[in-house]
């Protein structure tokens, strides 16, 4: 499946992706209105700083065997058999935290206002409804550090040794 990958060598840690992510998941999709929304729109992609200094980009990997789905006691987590996308059904989610506990990457968080689990959904709503071609973070990245592609196509995107994670 296509996933979001990051070339950390060109990442400036500007956090434009985080902002774009929160905006894409806001009600209004408009920055000026979105910052006044309650509950606040929240990002599902996060920049982390590694122990050695460089940044590391973290979002859901849409694993082949997702631990979050097995741990989800409300059956809110599921993997789309066609696209491979791991999604959370916000109506079923009770915010119990089991998926957060299961994800070995720490890619999930609980929205402390809405009490539901938040995760990267590849902006599927945007893609389906507005007909965009890529997730908001990828589209917004000013240095083209983020790409949305198949794993096997990565070598066309970056030199392999520069690929330090995604």
């Amino acid at each position, binding site marked *: 499946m296509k996933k979001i990958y990051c070339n950390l060598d060109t990442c400036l840690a500007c956090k434009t992706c985080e902002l774009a992510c929160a905006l894409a998941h806001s009600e209004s999709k408009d920055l000026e209105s979105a910052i006044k929304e309650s509950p606040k729109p929240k990002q599902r992609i996060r920049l*982390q*700083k*590694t*122990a050695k200094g460089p*940044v*590391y980009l*973290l979002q859901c*990997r849409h*694993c*082949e*065997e*997702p*631990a979050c*789905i*097995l*741990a989800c*006691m*409300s*059956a809110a987590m599921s993997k789309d058999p066609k696209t491979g996308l791991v999604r959370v059904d916000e109506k*079923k989610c*009770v*915010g*119990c*935290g*089991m998926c*957060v*506990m*299961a*994800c*070995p*990457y*720490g*890619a*999930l*968080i*609980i929205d402390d206002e809405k*009490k539901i689990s938040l995760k990267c959904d590849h902006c599927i709503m945007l893609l389906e409804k507005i007909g965009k071609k890529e997730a908001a973070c990828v589209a917004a990245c000013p240095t083209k550090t983020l790409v949305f592609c198949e*794993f096997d196509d990565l070598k066309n995107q970056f030199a392999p040794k520069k*690929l*330090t*994670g995604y």
Partner: protein
Amino acid sequence: MKYLIIGNCAAGIHALEAIREVDKTGRVTVVSDEPFPAYCRCLISYYLAGTRTEADLEMRPKGHYNLMNVNTILGKRAVKIDFKNRMVILDDDRRLDFDKLLIATGASAKPLGAEGENLKGCFKFRTIEDTRNIIEMCKETKDAVVLGGGLIGLKAAYGLKKRGLNVKIIIKSGQVMSQIVDKGGAEIIKRQFEKNGVEILTGLAAKKIFGNGKVHGAELDNGQSVKCEIIIIGKGVDSNLDLVKNTEIKTHWGILSNNKMETNIKDIFAAGDVAETIDLATGEPTINALWSAAAEQGRIAGFNMAGKPRIYEGSCAENAVEFFGLPVISLGIHRPQGEGFQEVISNQPEKFRYKKLVFKQNRLAGVVIVGDFKNAGVFLSLIKSKADVSGIKDILMEDSFDYSKMKDIIPKKKEGVLITTTIDAKEIFG
């Protein structure tokens, strides 16, 4: 191929889905003594609280069994295994043949073992039916008592309080959640309940339940009486072993399962709350009666039954729970006993925050965190993979700790292992 699954909860459903991923045509039959389609058992506290309806508890959409091409026999109990003829006999004398059998009979709530526990108004809290009956009773009730301060007891108390009842929790040990949280963390959880109007009495047990046909109250072992119309018994669970008792299937606390989730009898598998496996944190055989463990074991059993080899490395005590908005995480060994352990604690009771890490030599053995869910899975992955954390011990306690700080020390996933303990090379590279 004829597959038979006894049990229709986390392990059973995940097993049948795994079987169907591999084998689209084999005959699959699911038997359960509960008359409902599979439901999310852990959500009964939300049903009790009134924040979820019974319909919300359904684990799979309507028509799922049809889609999976599965034969269901619900509301019937499997009573005997005929090993010679490879059949399971149900309580209506029906005989079901199998090539591969999964025993996922789960567990049942333990009885109190005191006088009066059969009075009307005295409940266990395990099934939809229990919850229905409690909710019905709540309509004419003001005061409730919960016996037991473990997960079941606290979740029941939470649900009853949300329904507007006066709730008292009576706990035999000196603290809440003594099985999964240490004293420091428990103190904060207790205060959270008290802040939300639930009374907690520790160091006390119910000697008997009194009433006249109906519950009127409980008499405690210090002579004190508490009046109430509802009593919920939350004393833990026992594996449902009736089906295999006095048979050739080996049991201890539960059914002994190997790393394929197979029992000592070929082609007979066990998964979920009835299965005893190796604990990854302690190395000892145990039953971690958890939704996540049951689901993973069921899935692995399903794959192995269908001929796709998958290895189960073991279970781990792993709990995430939230009470009145307070997150609680408990992983692995929370109260170390024996030599070679080291504990690091950060306690901020005024902020309702507590964090304890337990190390055994150079690896992480246990975690208790109250007040925050963040990165719990990263800690769990460190425990399960037995990673050498000696280089990052200091930063593990910091709030800024996250996956990026430990990604290089997690061992790579081994061949055949399903998930969770280690990272898949394809998911992380570089």
